[in-house]
């Protein structure tokens, strides 16, 4: 179970989602993708993304202006 990082800071809708989708496609089931984003809309969007794709949103946190998401690939 490997962890992978995606820096989506400075990107706006829908780029963080598109880049996350692309990275997840290359991962093994059980792998975790950690995403950092600055788009405030990404909080609702990554929750919706996981609900639609079945991937598991392990964590959604905020540190300063940066939103951090941990997604486990199904």
């Amino acid at each position, binding site marked *: 179970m490997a962890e992978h990082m995606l820096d989506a800071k400075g*990107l*706006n*809708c*829908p*780029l963080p*989602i*598109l880049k996350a989708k692309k990275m997840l496609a290359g991962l093994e089931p059980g792998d975790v993708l950690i995403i950092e984003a600055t788009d405030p809309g990404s909080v609702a969007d990554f929750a919706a*993304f996981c609900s*639609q794709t079945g991937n598991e949103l392990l964590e959604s946190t905020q540190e300063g202006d940066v939103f951090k998401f941990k997604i486990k690939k199904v």
Partner: protein
Amino acid sequence: MAEETVADVKKKSMSIIVTKGSLDWAYPPFILATTAAALDFDVTLFFTFYGLALVKKKLDPKFTVLGNAAMEMPMFGTHIAMPNFMAMIPGVDAIAGSMMKKMIKDKGVASLDELREAAILSDVRMIACQMTVDLFEYKREDLIDEIELGGAATYFDIAANCHINLFI
């Protein structure tokens, strides 16, 4: 009865009829199409009338303040309305278009080329309306290779099976 498996559940799907080809109107269909594809939807875009400009090989959508009655641009720390008569002044549309492009770039918003490429890579199906292709005298080779040609019946054959059908 056997338990329902993932394969039994019909895949989510969406179609959008794309009728407009200016810079501002080009964004919604490509944003929605790429995002839906990322959310595992089968997506079809049906380009007709001015929407055909968005599937030309060279993507260069123009911008006009005309008809955008509620448009405001963020300028000088406030919002400046763009009255329709401004469009009569030579160069105003070009300047407003460049301002829009600069704003898009500065704010980390994807370029249209990027979004269209993402749509192609995520297997968004793109259909150009044959009748309007002929009407506006586009040639097949003017359009991107990924485009299919079809008519209203083709659209309905797809839309009848879609969960979401939009018109932009």
